[in-house]
C-alpha cells in the first residue's frame, strides 16, 4: 500500500471518507449501539428496564434460538462451500466464451432479478404435496415412496428450503465474471507460448488470481445468510417446529412479539456470528496479503 506522504493527500482521503462515515454513523453505528445496550434490558411496548444478562441466559436455553444457530450454520455452509465454488466454476467456464455463453450468463443471473415474494410463491407451489411439480416428477419416474409434503414435514422442510435457494450462484457468478474480465491477456498469451492446456491455464493463472474475489464472494455469502429473513418467512415462517428457523428470522419473530430487548440480543449475536465468519474467511483466503 502507498504510505501517506503529504497533507493534501491526507485531506483528500478525509473528504473522500466523510460521506460514508456520516451515513454509516447514522444508519448503522447508532442502531448497533442501540442493539448493544438494549440487549441488557427487558424492552417491549410496556417497559424498558435494565435486566443484566437475563436475555443472554434465556437465549442459550432457548431451543428455537439454538435451532436457528444450527440452521444458520447450515445455510452459511451450503452458501460458502457449494454456491460460491459452483458460481466461480460456472464463471470460469462461461468466460471461455463458447457459443451461447451470453445466453447462459443472462439465464443464470435472471432469477436474482425476481423478487423474493414471487420466488417463495413459486417454490411453495413446486413443493406442494397435492399438485406440486416435484412430487409429480417423482411419481413419473416411479419413485412414489419419495413423495412428501416437503415444506410441512419435519424431515424434509430444511432440505427443500435450502434447495430452492440455489439461484444465488448466479450472483457469485456475475461478480467473478467481472473479475475475470479484468485479468491481463498477456498472462494467457505467455502460457500459450509455453504450450499450457486449458486446465493448466485455469489452475495456474485464473484461479490464483481469483483468490480474493472468491473470498469476497464468501463474505457476501455469509452476509446473505445472516441478513435476509423474508425468504424463509414467506416459505415456512421457520416451521414446522422450528426446523427451518434461522437467526435473522428469529430476530424478526421476537421483534414482532414484540420483545425488542431479546430480539436485539439475538441480533447482536448474529452480527458477531458473521464477524467471526469474516475473520475466518480473511485468514483462509489470505485477503490481507497483497499480491505481487
Amino acid at each position: 500500500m502507498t504510505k501517506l506522504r503529504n497533507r493534501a493527500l491526507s485531506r483528500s482521503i478525509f473528504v473522500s471518507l466523510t460521506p460514508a462515515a456520516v451515513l454509516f454513523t447514522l444508519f448503522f453505528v447508532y442502531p448497533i449501539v442501540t442493539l448493544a445496550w438494549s440487549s441488557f434490558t427487558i424492552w417491549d411496548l410496556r417497559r424498558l428496564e435494565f435486566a443484566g444478562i437475563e436475555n443472554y441466559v434465556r437465549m442459550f436455553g432457548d431451543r428455537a434460538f439454538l435451532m436457528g444457530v444450527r440452521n444458520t450454520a447450515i445455510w452459511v455452509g451450503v452458501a460458502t462451500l457449494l454456491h460460491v465454488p459452483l458460481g466461480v466454476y460456472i464463471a470460469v467456464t462461461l468466460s471461455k466464451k463458447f457459443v451461447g455463453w451470453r445466453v447462459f450468463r443472462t439465464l443464470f443471473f435472471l432469477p436474482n432479478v425476481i423478487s423474493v415474494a414471487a420466488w417463495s410463491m413459486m417454490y411453495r407451489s413446486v413443493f406442494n404435496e397435492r399438485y406440486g411439480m416435484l412430487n409429480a416428477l417423482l411419481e413419473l419416474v416411479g419413485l412414489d415412496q419419495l413423495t412428501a409434503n416437503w415444506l410441512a414435514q419435519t424431515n424434509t422442510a430444511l432440505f427443500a428450503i435450502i434447495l430452492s435457494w440455489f439461484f444465488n450462484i448466479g450472483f457469485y457468478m456475475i461478480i467473478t465474471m467481472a473479475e475475470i474480465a479484468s485479468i491481463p491477456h498477456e498472462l494467457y498469451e505467455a502460457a500459450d507460448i509455453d504450450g499450457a492446456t486449458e486446465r493448466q491455464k485455469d489452475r495456474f493463472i485464473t484461479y490464483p488470481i481469483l483468490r480474493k474475489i472468491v473470498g469476497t464472494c464468501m463474505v457476501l455469502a455469509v452476509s446473505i445468510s445472516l441478513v435476509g429473513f423474508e425468504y424463509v418467512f414467506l416459505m415456512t415462517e421457520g416451521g414446522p417446529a422450528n426446523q427451518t428457523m434461522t437467526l435473522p428470522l428469529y430476530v424478526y419473530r421476537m421483534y414482532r412479539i414484540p420483545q425488542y430487548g431479546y430480539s436485539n440480543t439475538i441480533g447482536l449475536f448474529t452480527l458477531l456470528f458473521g464477524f467471526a465468519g469474516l475473520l475466518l474467511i480473511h485468514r483462509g483466503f489470505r485477503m490481507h496479503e497483497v499480491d505481487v
Partner: protein
Amino acid sequence: MSERRTNAALFSADTAFRTVPRVLVIALTTVFTVLPLIWLVLSSFKTNTQIVTESLTLPNPWNFQGYRDAMQMANLHISFLNTIIVSLSSTALTMIVAILSAYPTARFDFTGNRMVTAIFTIGIFVPLTALTVPIVILIRTLGLYDTKTGLILTYTALFFPITFVVYRGFFLSIPRDLESAAQIDGAGYFTTLVKIVLPISVPAFATVIVLVFIRTWNEFYYAFLLTGSPQHRTVQMSIRFFTSAFDFNFPGLFASLFLVMIVPIILYVVFQEKVVSGLTAGATKY
C-alpha cells in the same frame, strides 16, 4: 493426460474439459432458472383456481384478466415512477459513497484504515430487522417520514456496506502501476481516482449497479415502514394490493409482478451486455 504434450492428447483433453461443464451448465440453468420464470409468466395468464391447484401446466383457458386488473390499478404508473426515482437515486448515491470510501481503504496506508474497513464491513452482517426501530426514529427525526428522500437515504445506507465490500475487493485486485505513474506525474488524489481508477473498474461498475439497482427495486420491508401515501408509494407496495388475508387476486398479482420484473431484466440485459462487451471488444482472451 494433461502431462502428455502430444497434440492429439491435448485436443481430446481440452474437448472433454469443455464439454462436460457445458452440459452441467445447461442442465442447471434449465432446472433452476428457466422453469421459475416460465412458471411466473404462465401463472399470470391463469385463473386464481388454476394457480392454487396446479403447478407447471399451461393456462386453460388463457386468462388476460390479470393484466387488465394490473393496468387498471390506480396509480400504478405513479408507483412505477417513484420506484424508478428511488432506485436510480439510491443506486447512484450508494455507488458514489462506496467508491469514495473503498478507494482510499484499498490503496492508502493511513492510521485507522483497518479499523474503518472492519467497521464498515460489520454493516453487512446486521440483520435488517434489527435496525427497524432506530431507523424509523432516525427518519422521523430527520423529518423525512413518508417521503421519497427518506427512502432513498435509507436504501443508500442499507446497501452501502455490501457495495463497499465488493468495490474494495475490486480495487485491491486492480494493478496499481498506472496510478503510480499518474502520481509521479503529479496528479492529485481525485484526478487519479476519476481519470485512472474509475475507467479500469468499469466491469465492477456494471456489476454493482445491476446488483444494487435490483435490490432497491425489490426491497419492500422498509418501503412498508417508511412510505405509504399514494404519491410516494413504490411498486413493491402497489402489487401487494392484490392480496389480503381473506381475498386474493393471484392473476393480478402475477401479472403485476411480471410487469414490475421487466424493468430490471431489461436493465440487466442491455446494460451488462453493453459495458462488458464494449470493454472486451476485439480482445480474445484464450
